């Protein structure tokens, strides 16, 4: 019965994904597909997010790039301080922000969070911040996170949760 339930829910998930549910109230995912641009914020926080010159790298930047690639989009990076970038997330000038945020980050009350990427130390699960309420976009990102997790697990100092 338990397995049948899980399977049923998976089918329900797949069926609704086909209809594009859940949808975003502000249409973030549609805009991503239409413009081919992912507006990402990066808060420098080595070794998770490294900003050198104009280039953003590190494991959390890599997952954002992978997510954009899955949707045939390019990433435009905005580098700044956490406070400012979360504010722009709330105003929906950004789609997501990375910066070594853990699930305990207080900014989570103003934005929503992806599934954990990895655990940097016990209890410290890193997440990507996403504009609040964009549930379709969040689900798409979660799928990319889950797909990329095996790779993330091989990064130095990172263990999959």
């Amino acid at each position: 019965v338990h397995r049948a339930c899980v399977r049923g829910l998976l089918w329900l998930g797949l069926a609704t994904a086909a209809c594009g549910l859940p949808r975003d109230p502000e249409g973030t995912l549609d805009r991503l597909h239409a413009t081919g641009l992912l507006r990402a914020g990066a808060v420098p926080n080595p070794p998770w997010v490294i900003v050198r010159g104009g280039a953003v790298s590190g494991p959390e930047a890599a997952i954002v790039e992978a997510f954009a690639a899955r949707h045939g989009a390019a990433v435009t990076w905005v580098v700044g301080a956490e406070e400012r970038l979360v504010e722009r997330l709330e105003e929906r000038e950004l789609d997501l922000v990375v910066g070594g945020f853990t699930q305990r980050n207080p900014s989570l009350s103003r934005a929503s969070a992806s599934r954990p990427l990895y655990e940097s130390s016990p209890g410290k699960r890193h997440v990507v911040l996403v504009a609040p309420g964009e549930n379709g976009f969040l689900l798409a990102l979660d799928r990319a996170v889950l797909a990329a997790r095996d790779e993330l697990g091989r990064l130095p100092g990172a263990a999959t949760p």
Partner: protein
Amino acid sequence: MRTAPPFDLPEEQRRALARARRLAWLTIAYLTTVVVAMYLVLGSSQAMKTAWIEDLLSFIPPIAFLVSARVARRRPDHRFPFGYQRATTIAYLCGALALLVMGAVLLGDAALKLAEREHPSIGSVELAGRAVWLGWLMIPTLAWSGIPVVLLGHAKLRLAEVLHDKVLHADAKMNKADWLTAAAAVAGVVGIAFGLWWADAVAAGAISFEIGRDGVRHLRAAVGDLMDRTPTTTDYSREDPLPARLEAFLLEQPWIAAAAVRVREEGHMLFADAVVVPRDERDLVERIDRTASAALRIDWRLHDLVLMPVRRLPGEAIPGREPPARVVPPQPAAAH
């Protein structure tokens, strides 16, 4: 003072009480599964949170019923010479207040979320290595919280009538209405799925409004009970016919010329005061004794009767004074 053989319920009521107790335990067990399941899929949906708190509040009536079924049946003692029946009503009053306050707080919450245009985020969970949107898990959970409970409510409603238990009746009514809560929350979640951020707060508002309304309804009922309002039927829709029957019974006695009856309700028991004007004063004590014993057999709920012989009915003694407020208010059936 005449007291019916204390607190020994008739066979039918005793069986109903045993069933009602089992149902109360079943309700508590079921609600526990609901509350845990709901907590696991709560997300940041206000409608889910509101429905969850309503489920938490649903614990109050069955617990109040079980506690009062123990306490209220204690025999009157030196400290509480009128017995412990009122314990039930006090439990009921507290439950009603909790509903009212929570309803108001949650309604405020929902209104605030709407005013601030807060977009609820619902993330995903991992099932068998895949990300599944939490909203899809909320819907079967809400169905579990809303469908079996209606059957429980139906079963309890019948028992509440037999036992004349108002707490049980209120609990049954709430259970029967629970599917509405679940349906509203499902509408909120489906709204979110379609990208309507406000659907969540609107559903939450509707649910909390219902919680508050339940609170007001039960509060009025409980306060009325504590103020010794004329006894009513379990659903408070009509006056209880018993006081009129008691008065009629007294007037049928050949030795009684006039009678006035005043009845109050404590829990499911009725306590009556009656004044009678005797036609024939011979063997008065014997007559009072026999009539009072017979009167207590009219109905199992009539628990205590004080029968007092008087020269005139109260209020008639002083010329020019207003006639007494009718002790037994007119019955709807008697209206022309």
